[in-house]
């Protein structure tokens, strides 16, 4: 009888350990691309995840970071490289281009018109929806530093944090779904 009790207690502690290790109903997305089409896919999946009852985290890194710049905010005091990146990269979601068939901008204009016609939300609308659905956004501090972006020029978003790979991995390790876009 005592042996049995001991076994049950052991099983219980193993079960608790397993429960602690098993990931939560979370989605962790890496948005590496700054392309319109890929960012659109990222937002569809993130907002869809919330509808499915999951918590969604988006980690914007490298080419994804300029999508979160606010075009109405201007900051000075940048060096030559920072100014160059600042000018060449999109300022916010509205300036993102298609990864394929951009055709010097024509393709992107046509796709945006098509999206409007087919009632597909724009990136700007998706960002607002994501905020409404409490999707967490983490911006890669290193990418910002590389491209010379400052916090003062990023968008106002209720669930925005700045961080690095550890912050992302801590969330990703506890997520059932992890995707790289």
């Amino acid at each position: 009888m005592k042996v049995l009790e001991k076994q049950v207690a052991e099983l219980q502690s193993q079960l608790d350990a397993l429960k602690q290790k098993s990931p939560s109903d979370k989605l962790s997305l890496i948005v590496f691309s700054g392309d319109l089409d890929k960012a659109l896919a990222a937002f569809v999946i993130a907002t869809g995840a919330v509808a499915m009852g999951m918590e969604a985290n988006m980690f914007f890194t490298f080419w994804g970071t300029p999508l979160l710049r606010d075009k109405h905010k201007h900051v000075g005091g940048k060096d030559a490289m920072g100014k160059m990146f600042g000018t060449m990269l999109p300022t916010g979601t509205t300036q993102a281009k298609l990864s394929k068939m951009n055709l010097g901008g024509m393709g992107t204009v046509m796709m945006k018109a098509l999206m409007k016609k087919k009632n597909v939300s724009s990136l700007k609308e998706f960002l607002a929806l994501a905020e409404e659905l409490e999707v967490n956004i983490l911006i890669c501090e290193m990418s910002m530093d590389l491209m010379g972006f400052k916090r003062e020029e990023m968008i106002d978003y209720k669930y925005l944090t700045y961080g690095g790979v550890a912050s992302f991995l801590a969330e990703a390790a506890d997520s059932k779904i992890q995707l790289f876009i």
Partner: protein
Amino acid sequence: MEVSMSDLIKADKILDLKGLACPLPVVKMSKGIKEVEIGQIVEAQTTDPGSLTDFPAWAKTSGNEILQTDQKSDVIKFYVKRVS
């Protein structure tokens, strides 16, 4: 005389999701269902053909029940019972 299910099911709330594209129908559905009590029924109307597979997937994951699906011309009607 044939009696369709929709004549028998009485919805407590109607959600007009017509014209919306993915993922908005399920996003709005997931919000709408929380506005009724457990056991009550939401009638969701969509025109997105993808919702025919998306709604059952959403119901399965969120733990709610689709009682009936009616498709007349372009409009799809889902009768969803809030279970959880």
